[in-house]
Structures are given as C-alpha cells and as structure tokens.
C-alpha cells in the first residue's frame, strides 16, 4: 500500500525547487487546466468529493470549509498556514524544501476555488531558509505568468505574499495567525465570528495547511473520485508522516491512509534502533495523546486513531524506547506550552506555569504524591476551559501518559531523582 506517492513522487529530482524543474516534472499542469475544467464552485465541489481533510491537525474537510464563505462578499483571502511548530512536526518544511512550487500551485488552485485575489503564506520565523526559497519561487512563478493579473489569460488575478513570522507557536492557530498577519500580537480571536465570515481584515478568509494545499494539484489533475479511491473511508488520499525518536531512519514519509502504523515504523522508518524496544509513541504532534505498542497495528486513519484516544493531528510520529521517561517527555511538552502560551486567558497562562513548576519537581523526584494529585487536578481545571486549543491540549499528553504510565509517574514521587534515567544509567554501567 505504500507505493502511492503523490506529493513526494518527484522529490529528489534534480532542480525540482526551480520553476523549470517543477515544470519538467509536470508542474503547473493543474493550474493550466483548472480554468477550463472547473468553475470556482465546481472546484469546491470536486474537493468535497475527494474527501480531502485538512492536514494541519484538526482534520476538517477542506471543501466544506471553503463552502462556509458567504456568497458574494468580496474581497476574500486565502492564507496558507506554514507556521509548522507543533513538537515533532517537520513535514511542511520537508514539502516546502523539496517543492516550493507545488505549494504555490496549490495556493493558486485554492485561491481560485475561494476567489481570493491576494493570498498569503504565513511561514514561521525559524523557517527563514524556507521563506527565502518560497519568495524566490513566487518571483519565478510571477515572471512566468502563474501569479499576477489575468493568470494564463483566465481572467483570474492572484497575488501571493510570503509573510514570515517571528517566533510564536500560537500563530499556527488560525485566528492568531490572522491577527499576526494583520500586525498585531498573535493571539487567538473570539469566535464566532469565524474566519470564513470575518477573517483577515474583517473579510471572509480560509486558512489551509501547507500539505492540504500541496495536495490540490493532484486532485485537480486526477479528480476527486480518484483521490477518494486512495485511502479509506473518512481518511482519503495520502499523508506525509514525519517520524522521529528512537528509530533507525527518522524522516518524512508519504503514506497511503489506512496503512498500518506498523508498516510506517518497520518499513519506512527502519524499525526501532538496535537494542530499542517500543515503549510508547505519540502520533499527531505534541498536543496529542500517547499510544502504546499495541496501537501500532492501528491503521493510519484519522477516525481509527481518534477512537483509540489520540489523533493523527499534524502527521507527526515520535517513537520512544524503554529509555524514554514519560514524565520527562511530559515535562518538555508542558515547558513548551508554558513558553508558547500567548497569555491571553487565565487557565492557559497560569495553568501551564503551574504545570511546569510541578512537572519539574516531579521529574527531579522531589514531588509528593499530593503534588502529583494537584498536577492532574489542575490539568482537569484547564482542559475545556481555555480560550483556544493551546491550553486545552497542554494537558492531553500529560493526562494520557498518566493514564497509561501511572506507575512511572508515582515512582517519581519522593524518589529524589528520575527513576527511569537512574535505571538507564545503571544498565549502561
């Protein structure tokens, strides 16, 4: 089942990052044909037919998202969310590094569907090199007539602006992204109104992930029905999974959805490192719940993983072996959320700080059982109470790890050091 490569098929081809190279590999054919083949409305329908779900984390059906834009309200904007910052995620960077023009073509197709004449790619500040690559690609595409006025004599105008962030994970949240793009502190907005109704500059706006948009040329070329035939019901097509941790070949791999996770781990990632045994893994990225070795038999299917209590999220896979301490891992994630909390709402701002203080105490073996109880209690006081998902998800991994590895958490209490690290040290000695 792994033979399907749509987005990454030509990766590694000489010069694919350049316009010429991309065109040689069949690039911009989707854009050349889209105006004759689809009206904006029928393109929205085609994407609905494809069953494409957003690749940024929430997995919302892309065509449906587009159809929420109110009729006749102009201008509208499309924003590509390239603010990939979820711990464990690097697949958008991989896509942009290898084929910036594929993303640009996708942005143009999406812009045509939603009738956006000015579209944006919001890319995280740390991806400076990727931003420069995209900026260069945009200029090439503009010179070739793919971007600008009356694209390919279609009558459709679209400009693309590459906008660099400056270090704020929260800007991956779509309304925070819009505030940041408007030149404000990147803090999430109160919803409703939703961006589809009142988004960038108060106008109807869609925000789509890099991978979602990079998929569009393939749907346009080969049709929604064809796309739907790949993958499984509810999780159609392919996805790029970025894998890291205690594995032999960390990296990004495009997989047909529905493939067992085991195949991704054993065949693409080359299995666990020598001497390593899978203890747990975190799919989806830093926000998602931990899963156990038995869960590697689950298919790469958004609904199936959700049923198992986690999520494919933004396509990350972090595999841990027996030396990994779930408390230490939780602590690093909590520190991340504490650092990245925008500070807007009380439970996230103060809760992540409180969590962080307790996690450090716990990891160093200095916490009491009562403090461990406090930790889980404040997690429950945060989850579902925060302004945006950041604060809610700051609790998910911790709580799932506590559920599956309660002994490991409890063994830290009063131990004076991290028992897992102590054991690993002892075994090494």
């Amino acid at each position, binding site marked *: 089942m792994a033979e399907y490569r749509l987005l990454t098929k030509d990766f590694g081809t000489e010069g694919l990052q350049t316009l010429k190279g991309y065109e040689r590999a069949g690039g911009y054919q989707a854009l050349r044909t889209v105006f004759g083949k689809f009206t904006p409305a029928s393109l929205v329908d085609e994407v609905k037919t494809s069953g494409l779900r957003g690749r940024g984390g929430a997995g919302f059906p892309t065509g449906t998202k587009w159809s929420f834009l109110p009729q006749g309200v102009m201008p509208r904007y499309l924003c590509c969310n390239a603010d990939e910052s979820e711990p464990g995620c690097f697949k958008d960077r991989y896509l942009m590094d290898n084929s910036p023009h594929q993303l640009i073509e996708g942005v143009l197709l999406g812009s045509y569907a939603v009738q956006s004449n000015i579209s944006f790619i919001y890319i995280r500040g740390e991806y400076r090199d990727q931003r420069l690559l995209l900026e260069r690609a945009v200029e090439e595409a503009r010179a070739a007539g793919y971007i600008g006025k009356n694209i390919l004599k279609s009558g459709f105008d679209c400009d693309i602006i590459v906008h660099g962030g400056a270090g704020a994970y929260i800007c991956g949240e779509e309304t925070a992204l819009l505030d940041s793009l408007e030149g404000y502190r990147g803090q999430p907005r109160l919803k409703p109104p939703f961006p589809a109704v009142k988004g960038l500059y108060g106008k109807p706006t869609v925000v789509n992930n890099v991978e979602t948009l990079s998929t569009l040329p393939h749907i346009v070329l080969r049709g929604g029905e064809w796309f739907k035939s790949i993958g499984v019901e509810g999780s159609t097509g392919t996805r790029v999974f970025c894998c890291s941790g205690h594995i032999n070949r960390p990296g990004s791999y495009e997989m047909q959805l529905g493939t067992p996770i085991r195949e991704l781990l054993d065949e693409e990632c080359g299995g666990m490192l020598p001497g390593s045994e899978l203890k747990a893994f975190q799919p989806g990225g830093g926000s998602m719940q931990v899963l156990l070795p038995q869960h590697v038999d689950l298919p790469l299917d958004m609904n199936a993983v959700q049923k198992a209590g986690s999520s494919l999220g933004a396509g990350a896979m972090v595999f841990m072996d027996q030396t990994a301490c779930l408390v230490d891992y939780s602590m690093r994630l909590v520190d991340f959320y504490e650092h990245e909390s925008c500070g807007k709402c*009380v439970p996230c701002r*103060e809760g992540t700080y409180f969590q962080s203080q307790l996690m450090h105490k716990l990891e160093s073996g200095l916490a009491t059982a009562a403090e461990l109880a406090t930790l889980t209690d404040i997690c429950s006081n945060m989850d579902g*109470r925060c302004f945006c998902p950041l604060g809610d998800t700051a609790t998910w991994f911790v709580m799932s790890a506590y559920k599956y590895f309660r002994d490991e958490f409890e063994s830290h209490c009063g131990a004076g050091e991290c028992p897992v690290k102590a054991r690993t040290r002892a075994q090494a000695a």
Partner: protein
Amino acid sequence: MASGAPPVKGGSAGGVPPQDDGRVGVTIDGRQVRVPKGTLVLDAAAGLGIHIPIYCSHPKMEPVAVCRMCLVTIEKFPKPQPACATYVSEGMVVSTGDADVVKLREGMLEFLLVNHPLDCPVCDRGGECDLQDFTFRYGPSISRFPITEKVHFNKALPLSEHIELDQERCILCWRCVRYYDEITGEKEIVLQQRGVQTLVGTFNEQPLQSRFQGNLPEVCPVGALTHREYRFVARPWELQRTAGVCPECSYGCNLNIDARDFEIKRFASRDNPLVEDMWLCDRGRYSVPRWNSTERVRRAALHPRHGEARDVATGEAIAQAATELRHVIEESGPASVGVIGSAANTNEELFLLERLARNVIGTANIDHQLSTFAGISAAEHELGIAEIEECDLIVVLGPEPENEAPVLTLRLFKAEHKRGRTVRRLRPDPHPAEVASLRGDAGFVGIIADESNRERAAQVAAHLAGRGTVKRLTVTRGVNGRGAKDLGLLPNVLPGYVAARPAGAGGADILEAAARGEIKALVLLGPSSALQAAGDVLVRAVSRAASVVVIDTVPSEVTAHATVLIPGHAIVEKIGSVTNLEGRVQRVRPALPPATQTPAETRVLTALAAELGAADWPGGDPVSVNRALRAALPAYAAAGNGGRALWRVQVPA
C-alpha cells in the same frame, strides 16, 4: 403557503406573519425568561438576579472572554461557555451553579492567585476588590501553589503623577488596554511580553499623557492600577458616599463623593449613560483638594464704609443689607442697583436671586458673569449629549469645547469609532471653504461650540440648515452656567429665554458703572471667582459702591470690600439642583457638613426679600424653592430630577 415550504422571513405578502417579537426564551438555573435577541447570557442572568462573576467583561467594552471566570454550562455545548460573550438563543438551557461550574470557578480563582502577591492587607483596593470578593465567595479555601515560586514584577511603578501600577497584582483582564483602545483611542497602555511574563505597561515606561487617566483604577477590577492621591488614604467601608455632580465644568458628570472625617477623599464615577457614560476627566476627578480647602468665609460681618468692621449674627447682616439697599433705591432709584450671581450657584439660589433683582428690587441690571450674550436663544442649547451619537455629522468649532468639557471628547470618540459617525473638528473661525465643504447629505447635524463662538456656530448652522435637522450645543462655563441662562440671570432675557424689555446692564457693565459711581449698590452672590477677570474694575467697583452685599465662600478682594458679608456654602455642602450644558437638571446633595453655621443661601435670599417687603415668596428651604421654581417654569417641571429642560426653539424662516 405550500406545506413544507421554508418559513418566510419578514412576513412577505401572503405569508403568515412570523411570531417574532424580537425576543427569545432561555432557561437559566431552571428559571425561564424571555429576553431580547442579542442579549448576553451574562445580562440575561443578571436580569434574573443571578450573579455571574466577571473580571474582563465590562459593560462599556466589547467582550474578550479572556478571564474565563464567567464560564457556565449550556446544554448541547460540549464545553463551558463564557457568559460574557455568548448570546442567548431560543431554547438555551444554562446552568450557572452546577458542580462543573463550582469546580471551574474554584480552579480559575486558584489560577488567578498563582502569581498574585496576596498583599491584600496593604492594598488600596481591599474591601472593593473583585479578586478578594470572588475568592471569598467562589474560591478554593486553600492555596496549593508555593508562594516562593511566584513570578515577580514591578510592584510600584508610577505611570504618571496620578496613577500607580502594581504589575504583580494585575490579573491581565485587558480592561485598561481596551479602555485606551475603545474608549479614548490613545493606546497608552498596551500588553507587553507574552505568556506568564505578560504585563501591561506604557511604551518604554513613558508617563501617561491622557486627560482621562483617573478612570483606570475604576476599570481595573483589582488593585493593580490605583490613584496615587488615594494611596493608603482610606478603606472603602470607612467612606461616606454621596451621589453628586462634578463641580468642575458644565458637562454635569455624575459622580460619587466619598468622604471621611469631614474631608472628601476621592471622586468616583457614577454611571449615567446619558451624560458622562461613567468616564470622568482628570481635571474634575482630581479637583478634590479644592473642596477640602480650609480657606473659607466663616462668619457674617459688617464692614461699614465709615466705622468699625465687626462680626454679626446672620440676621443682623441681612437686616443691614436690606437697610442699605432700601436707602440706595430711595436715594437713586432701583436702576442704581446691580445684581450678579454666579455659574456655580444652584438653580434654587439663582431662581430667588433673579426674583429679588427684577421683582423685589426692581432692577434690570442682572447677570451671572462678565461677558454678555447678544441674541441668546434656546436654539444654541438644543442638542443633547447622548444625541451626539445619533448625528450623522458632528462639527466642533475649535479646541475650546473639548478643553472646557473634556469628557465631551470621549463621547465624540464613541460617536466616531463605535457608531461610525463623522466628526469634523474645525478652527473656531473656520475658513468659508471649510464650511462650504460641510455640504453633504447628512440628515442630522450637530454643531458644538463654546460660548465665545456662539455666533460662528450660528453661521455654520445657517449654512447647513434646510438639509435635515441641525442642532447646536453650546458648552457653557461653570457647573450651572446653563441653569443661570435658563433662569434669566442675564440682562437681556427673562427666565425661559423671553426677551427682557428694556434690557439692563450685564456683568461687566454693572461693574464699570459701579466703578464710575453710577451704580451705587451691588448684590453679589458668589462664588465670585469668575468676576476676578475684571481685575482693577472689580476692585474699584466694590470699593466705591455705597453698599456691597456679598454672599461668598472664599475670602477675596470682593469679600474684603463687602459692606455686608454673609458666608456662602460650597456646592459640595448644599442641597439643590444644577443644570448641565444640555439642560439636564441634576440634584446636588451635601457630601460635607457646611464650613459655616450660617443658613443656606436660599434662606438668606428669602429673608432679605422679606426684609425688602416681598410677599408670596416660598419658604426659604431649598425644597420649597425648588417646588416654586418648577411651578414657575414648566420646562423645569417636565425635566424633574435628571431630565432635560427643553425650551421651544424658534426656527428661523
């Protein structure tokens, strides 16, 4: 209508009119209520007397839902929702007191206190702090966060001469930031940093410049922003609160006067959406020391032109005043008497003073200030403050209106930025081209000018007339300058803007005439501070007149030269009413005991009138006088307490 057809909106022809009264039914804590669409859950609950704690929500600002204190459970919603930002919908079932809400409130208060310094014993806000109160009412009984791990910030950062910021007490409700964004537009305080390091502050720690800083401690729900003047001054429960009107200008801002130990400790806002909309200016709010001044006229005294000055009982002073006035009237006629009141007197006092002058003494020489108002009419006082928001176009002539009545600026900002109205600020003497540029299709135009630009405002109004409604608002001077005009304390109009025939001499002319020896008796009802601008003429007038009857509060040249001096009461010491620039009649009440034992001005004037032979005067107490005033002036009867006195305006043909 075909069966199965979708319901028709708006009751189109042939359709059944929808059962839409603009209201929706909701259930809150098991109680059903119908409220207008667009009502927030918070307000719907308040209507049922159900309290939902809030920090970030503010009645004058847009919801932000950041404090999460008002989360409630709503059926069919997967997560608790903020009552401050969720609008009711038909059939909504809300719970504000179930176990989930109780738990989350405890949790939220625990989070709020994680980095709070817990320094209530030395906090000025203690006793009126929402953090203290809600923790008491809804909070956890223990603290699980170690006090040693709190994040520390600046605890006493002066933001200006008026405002102190304690960044540790701040709970980041964003109210001060939104105040500067949504209410004044000055953006002086912003959020800085992020996450748990977030704080509020000014750019590069520069001092605040706003004229409206004093509102900050009031929008702050905790003790983060405090008045430096009030620092460590009083506990709120020790204060005696009196509802009053700001004495500083004619805008008539409602406020509370908080006093302790016979001293005013602070002015606090008292929301009147029709007037100041809860915002005070710093000039008014921080005028407190003036009202606590101990420099006062305390005893009645006679200073005969020839003979020894001596303190006397008030009755003797009144009798002497009557004797002197009678003598002048008999010797030189009533036209040799001049009567000048002040824009800081109550309507009741001015009502009596006008009758005393015109009816008892029989002089037409009456005014309440120095400058005169040729051609004054009710047309210049037509526009209401709240009506400014309804104007399509508001023209402001010069900076004076907003200097004179600063809170006007905030109403103009609201009209412009919340209501989308056009505000044009022109020079006081606008170039004809500027005036010409005002041509447009504005249906409702407001023109605002100060008293010195009344005539230019009339010209602009004439230019815009005929294209819709044009109304003018004149910013009068003094807390009751408008009342003085309404009540005929002018040489050229009687009460109600009825032309006086013949007209008498105005304030400046009266003093000139007295200085020349033509006017021989002066009756001056203070505060006389507004007369000081006459300078030398004033001194010569009060030195030369044979009789100078002065009722005043603060010692001055005028009181020094009074042949009869009777102590007056300060506006914060007396009962009565004042009329703001738009004609709103508002009550003033004593917030302090009077600095003198002598009777109130209304009693003094009544007694003086009686000594001069007046019959059928009301009893001298302010309440009786007020009743007589209303009987005499239907506009004031209609205004009652808090309404506007509206006069018939002659529309020029």
